[in-house]
């Protein structure tokens, strides 16, 4: 398989990464080389093999449904790009 520049632009849109035509073209070549490497997987027969998502067979632990965190809003918002009255500011999305 081979990605077109339109594919690259579509993926970049999904990934929320701005990309112009020249960058898409440069990226296309690199990605296709990497996918060339990845293609080796397709020759392997994996019928009946259970996918391995994780190295250990562990279950999600549960804890008591109790408040464990203290309010650190000010500390967390002190490092935010834009805040006001305890709210994170972003460009208007609803007119």
């Amino acid at each position, binding site marked *: 398989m081979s990605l077109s520049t339109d594919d690259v632009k579509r993926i970049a849109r999904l990934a*929320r990464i701005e990309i112009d035509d020249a960058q898409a073209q440069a990226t296309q070549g690199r990605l296709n080389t990497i996918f060339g490497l990845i293609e080796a997987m397709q020759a392997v027969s994996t019928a009946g*093999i259970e996918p391995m998502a994780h190295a250990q067979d562990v279950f999600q632990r549960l804890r008591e449904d109790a408040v464990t965190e203290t309010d650190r809003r000010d500390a967390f918002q002190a490092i935010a790009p834009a805040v006001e009255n305890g709210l*994170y500011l972003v460009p208007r999305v609803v007119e």
Partner: protein
Amino acid sequence: MFESSLSTLAAQLAARAVSSRELAQAWLDRIAALNPALNAFITVDPEKTLAEAAAADALIAAGSAGPLTGVPVAHKDIFCTDGWLTTCGSKMLSNFVAPYDAHVIQRFKAAGMPSLGKTNMDEFAMGSSNETSFYGAVKNPWDTTRVPGGSSGGAAACVAARMAPAATGTDTGGSIRQPAAFTGITGLKPTYGLVSRYGMIAFASSLDQAGPMARSAEDCARLLNVMTGFDPNDSTSLERDKEDYARDLDQPLAGLRIGLPREFFAEGLDRDVAAAVDAAVAELKKLGATTVDISLANSKLAIPVYYVLAPAEASSNLSRFDGVRYGYRAPDYADLDEMYARTRAQGFGEEVKRRVLIGTYVLSHGYYDAYYVQAQKIRRLIADDFSEAFKTCDLILGPTTPGTAFKLGENADDPVAMYLNDLYTIPANLAGLPGMSLPCGFDSQGLPIGVQLVGNYFSEARMLNAAHQYQRATDWHTRMPIHL
């Protein structure tokens, strides 16, 4: 002092022969002298370091010191450190002062071990040369025209150049072991789940694991005692009884069965590396070990599998960097979508963007089964090969890397050539097994060579035993770059 083991430093502190402040100041002076040439540290903050050292001195004076209290260490800039700039080597986090401590940092603080600073690394731990760092490449102390390996390249360089007694690193596909090999130090990636990932900025969560980087296996064992332990804040942290990883260091090696995977000694392996690894095997045999021929037939697929799974997990993990809650935000944008897209285009470097794009693609509709699920199935085949091999051997041994440290810029334009560096290290990450690299010689150009040990789950004490006995019989790990 710069050549002393961690336990020697601790003994001197306990005997009041030196204070933690004096130790910290001496190492800070050495960092100030060497860092301009090596670029191993992103942040050094002598005031904070000396305050932590003074607190350690108070613990020692009060008689409440632990085994390593007062011994300073350097931390990879992937660990959130309260009040310290924590960049992960990225422009995206170039203004991020962490508001809390990673579990690993909490444990070093609880042990009374001052931080010497935050070490340079490939951006978001994605790289094998440390050239993807927003803060510039780290130079290999053995030859400053060469890379130190990556992604824990700053940690490796600072230990190799004796700018810190020891350092923390993280390893997703070889990021502790490969730089350890390239710089002539000892580094260990523990069994997945032994060290908490809380506060360790996530790359590929099913593979990421933190571990020690130091000058010897003995030092690594003592650091592992500090770093490991159950943490309810990491859902993959394992609840196990506390172990002393130094307990078996002095055991003899008689009866140890070492598996040699024939696939790791095949085509593509540098001749000097092969010869040094063969010599390490001969040395271990002299110490009483025997060897077994084994096969890890599916390990040749480790790189393709890794470059599906790691980017897939990364594309999800890195979606949090959107310019809203912390980190970089693009200065100009017309609307919310543009703010996200520009922030990420400007805040991430090329390699990170590449991997986010690969991950986004393999997880997208119509490709998920062909790539992501297929990779997870082959991951199991790779893990099964190891289980089969451990029926006939106790440890697996091979080269850490196919070659020695390459020139800065040599692989910068060829991602695939760069990726092949991790050919021998990735399989252990995929299986979740512990792996370590230790120095075993030099190539014809005087560059360090690493030999890798991979153990079964939770066999760190056994691996460290074999490595320590090897280091008692050899002196490769004591060599350092003479011009420093």
